[in-house]
Structures are given as structure tokens and as C-alpha cells.
């Protein structure tokens, strides 16, 4: 079954290219330390250089090499995207499964809470939550990247929750559930062993789109100054500092935005390919 899905996925040439691009980005970020520059060393005498052989993307207003900063920033953005999506899916699947399987009062309460979270103006609440968590003095909550991961997950679990709940409402009427119950299967056994494996397809597709959205959200928050705190570079915060210099050195603003754009495009293409690969009813039309 997995092989069928993989085969259908790679029929989309674009999706294959997208995966290659994404893998390349991950490797580039992982090996960011191989550049001769540091992302945070300041050399004010060297500022505002255009792209040249020494500095591929030029330097910013403090003389830092933009290329290196973007590679390190990629680490943060990609990590935040990945981890926040995982966390969000974990939470969402839990709530959605409980809600969809048991129905009744539990469903009612959980859905009310989900609806409440869905009506939040997310960006506002993210900013408030971020400021709130940053001012706590809890020792394990010092890292602003961790805080960003938590708050993005806290405001995006509703989408997988709704999805999983819908799937469970349909799947729990299926015969294999009745059979398992007749054989004495406990609820948790049925949920984990029987129903959940059938949900993996839509969850994965929704997860990729969520990851793209998480990257955009993290960059946006950092751009506003409420995400990852300086001096840790992230694509959004590079954009923010670049905005002040946009008339003097527009290239600094170009590259981080370009990276976000490419990453999000790649993830979207992958998501598209995955959706077609998992969906048994799509007829692939050869051009």
C-alpha cells in the first residue's frame, strides 16, 4: 500500500522536485556552520555590501553576512514549522479522536472549546500569549524558539481536531469497529489499532499544509518582533531588520522572503502531490 502511494506521488514531477528542494534546504541549514562567517558577529565597517564572491547575499547593516544568517535562520524556521506541526497534530488527533469516537457530552464540550479557539483572532492571541510566556520565569521556558513552537501549536490544533473528529464519526460506524467491539476490544484498542490507521492519509496531507502555514506564522511573528527574539536569526526577523534599510539596501529584504516563499511553495507542492497520492478516487490525467 505504501508503495502504491509512493508511486502515485512521484507521478507528479513537481512534487518530486519540491521534495528535492526541501531536502536541499534542510541540508543547507544543517551545515550552516561550514560557512566562514558567524551569524551574529558584527563588523560595522563592512556593512551594506552587495552580493559579491565573499558574501553571496551581501552584508546587512551590522556587517553580518546575510547568506550565513539565512542558513541559520532556516534552521529555526524549519524546526519551528516541523515541531509545532507535530505538537499541533498530536493534540488535535487526541481531541478529535475522543470527540468523534465517544460523541455525546464529551463531543459537545470539546467542540465548544474547539469553536472558541477557532474564533480567536489568532495573530493577536499569538502575540499576547508569546509576550505572556516570555515574561514567565519558569526555567525550562527560556528559549524563545520553544515558546514560539508552543504558541503556534496551541492555536492550530483545531484543524486536525476537526478533521479527525469528522473521520472518526464516519469510521466508527464501520464493520471492523463493530467486529472488534464484539470480540471484546477496549475503546483505546479500537481507536489506536483500528480507526486511527485509516486516518493517516488525510492527517498527513493536512499536516503538510499546516507546516507551511506554521512557517509563515513564525516568520510573521518574528517580523513583528514577537516571535523568536534577536540575536537568533530567523527569516522573519531578518526581514524586520531589513525593512528599516529597505531603501538603502533592498537586497537584504529580498532573500529571506525568497526563502520563505520557496519553502512554502515546495511544501504546498508536496501537499498537493500527497493529496493526489492518497486519494483513491482521483484520476491522474496525463498531459
Amino acid at each position, binding site marked *: 500500500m505504501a508503495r502504491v502511494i509512493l508511486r502515485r506521488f512521484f507521478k507528479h514531477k513537481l512534487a518530486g522536485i519540491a521534495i528535492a528542494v526541501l531536502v536541499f534546504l534542510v541540508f543547507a541549514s544543517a551545515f550552516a556552520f561550514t560557512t566562514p562567517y558567524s551569524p551574529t558577529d558584527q563588523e560595522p565597517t563592512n556593512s551594506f555590501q552587495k552580493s559579491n564572491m565573499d558574501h553571496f547575499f551581501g552584508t546587512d547593516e551590522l556587517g553580518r553576512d546575510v547568506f550565513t544568517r539565512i542558513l541559520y535562520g532556516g534552521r529555526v524556521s524549519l524546526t519551528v514549522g516541523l515541531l509545532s506541526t507535530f505538537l499541533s497534530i498530536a493534540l488535535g488527533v487526541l481531541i478529535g479522536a475522543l470527540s468523534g469516537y465517544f460523541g455525546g457530552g464529551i463531543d459537545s464540550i470539546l467542540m465548544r472549546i474547539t469553536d*472558541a479557539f477557532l474564533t480567536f*483572532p489568532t*495573530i493577536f492571541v499569538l502575540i*499576547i500569549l508569546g*509576550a505572556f510566556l516570555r515574561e514567565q520565569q519558569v526555567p525550562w521556558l527560556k528559549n524563545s524558539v520553544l515558546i514560539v513552537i508552543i504558541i503556534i501549536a496551541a492555536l492550530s490544533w483545531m484543524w486536525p481536531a476537526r478533521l479527525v473528529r469528522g473521520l472518526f464519526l464516519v469510521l466508527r460506524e464501520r464493520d471492523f469497529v463493530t467486529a472488534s467491539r464484539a470480540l471484546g476490544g477496549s475503546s483505546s484498542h479500537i481507536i489506536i489499532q483500528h480507526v486511527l490507521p485509516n486516518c493517516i492519509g488525510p492527517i498527513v496531507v493536512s499536516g503538510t499544509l499546516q507546516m507551511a502555514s506554521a512557517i509563515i506564522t513564525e*516568520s510573521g511573528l518574528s517580523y513583528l518582533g514577537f516571535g523568536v527574539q534577536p540575536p537568533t536569526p530567523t527569516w522573519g526577523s531578518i526581514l524586520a531588520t531589513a525593512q528599516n534599510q*529597505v531603501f538603502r539596501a533592498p537586497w537584504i529584504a529580498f532573500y529571506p522572503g525568497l526563502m*520563505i516563499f520557496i519553502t512554502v511553495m515546495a511544501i504546498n507542492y508536496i501537499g498537493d502531490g500527497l493529496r493526489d497520492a492518497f486519494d483513491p478516487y482521483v484520476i491522474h490525467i496525463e498531459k
Partner: protein
Amino acid sequence: MTTYALRRILQTIPILFIISILLFFLVRSAPGGPLTSARRNPNVTKEQIQAMEEKLGLNDPLPVQYSRWIGDMLKGNLGQSIKFHRPVNDMIAERIPNTLTLVGASFFLTLLLAVPIGILSARRPYSLFDYVMTTITFIGQSIPVYWLGLGLIVIFYVVLKNPFTGLPFFPVGGMNTRGKEGELLDTLWHLVLPVTALSLGWIAWYSRFLRSSMMDILHEDYVRTARAKGASSNTVYYKHALQNAILPLITLVALDLPSLFAGALFVETIFSWPGMGRLFWDAAKGRDYPVLLGVVMITAVLIIFCNILADLAYGWLDPRVKYE
């Protein structure tokens, strides 16, 4: 129909309740309350601070503080801004029309462009037009709003200039040129760039969604029946198919409203548009919690209101819903 509307409105009350509790807890536990400057002042004694706390009711148990706050809010009083010492009501009331102008204009433009593009793409699937549009919308969906905004500023302020006057084509800041407040044409001129930045992503997304929605519907039996009965192309597409394809779009728009305000926040910040998003950002930088709370509550109420409108529109267009 009225019972349906009333039912929906009643359903939103517990949601508002939950939201307000969460927000209240967040804000009350955060440092930087109204007494921060007093606490830092070495001339103010401990007893004086305690007296002020008593007066402001900060020592009462939390449920009491909450009910007082909710009571205030329901009466329409949202508190005082810490930074500006003005009632939050006034500050928000000043900015709401501006934000609504921006968001409304973007929404209008989005519908104007996304619906025809979606329909045309569905009418001629896999044609050149469809292929070009799909690629463009894919790109449009992936561009971050803030990058697009910055890019527009660079293009229209640095690169392209009006060859006759040497001035930029479109203004890049604020809502009106000085001295022309309230003039419609001037506001429209200032609206061009922010609205473009804001709408592009949505046009991309909604047109794609409408296209796939329409394509699903065009395979339905009732469309085939309409065609067999000899209905003209326009009737089939616009009356039968579109009416059904719009429904998921309404649901999508209703669910997407929070991101609408997010986009507005970014655009308002970049283009110095004096709206609620900008107010929120300034307040957040200054830890002005009453303003933050007021903006969030008002926005949440707005979102809920639009959700109800969307539900009503859905109920009006799809009679099956009313009999649930």
C-alpha cells in the same frame, strides 16, 4: 429562519464566555499592570501601593475581578489605556472604520476577481488559461503578505516612478495625504497598494477552492439533467452549479476570518495604515494590556458576528440546513 438565527446566536454565547475567561486569565497573570510605574517610584511607600491595589480591586479573588470586568465590558466600558490614558473605547472606535475600509475593500476585490477566475478555470479545465491560472494562484498562495508588502513598496517607491512628475505612482504610507482627510479619491489612491498586498493571497486561494468545488459539482447528476433539458451554458454554470459551489466557499471564508485580521495587521504595519491592527501592534510593544484585551474582544465579537452572517447566508442558500 428566525428561529435558526436565534439558535445560532445563542450558541455563540458559551463560546464568547470561554474566550473571555481565557483572555482574562492571560492578561491578569501578566506583569506590567496599571501600577508598574507607581511600584518603581521610590517615593511611593508600600502602604500607598497596597491602598491603590485595594482601590483598584486587585486584591479581590479572581472570579470577583472577572465578573467586574465582564460587567464593565457588557456596559461598553473597555478600560483605560495605560500608555495614553484614554478610554480604550475611543481608541478602538477611531480605528475600526479604517480597518473595516481596508478589509472590506480587499474582500470586495477578492470576490470580484476570485469568483470569475474560479468559474472560468472550472469551465475549461486543463486548458492554457487554467494551467496559467493554477500556477499563478499557487505562487500567490505561497507569498508571505509582509514580503509582498515590502516588495510593493520597493517597486512603487524606489523602482517605478511616474515619468512626468518624478513622484511615485502610489503612496506607500498612511491613509490620507495631509490636509485631505476624508476625501474619498485620496483614500482610494492610498488604498491601492495595501489592498493589493492583502488580497493577492486570498484571490489565489479562493479561486483555487472555487475551481475544485465547481469541478466536483459539474459531475453531479442534476447538472447533467439541466444540460439534457437544454438549459443554456450560462444557466447551467451560473444558476445551478455556482449556487451549490458557493456553499463550501462561504464556510471557508467564515473559518478564514481570523487570518483575514492577521493579514490586515501586517499590511497596516507595513503601510502605516491607522487601523486596529496597528493599534494592537503599538500597544503590544508598550505592554498596554487594556488596549490589547479590548482589541481582541472586539475582533472576536466581529468574527463571531461574521460567522453568524455566513451561517445565515448558508441557510438562505441551502434550504436543507434549516430543517436540522
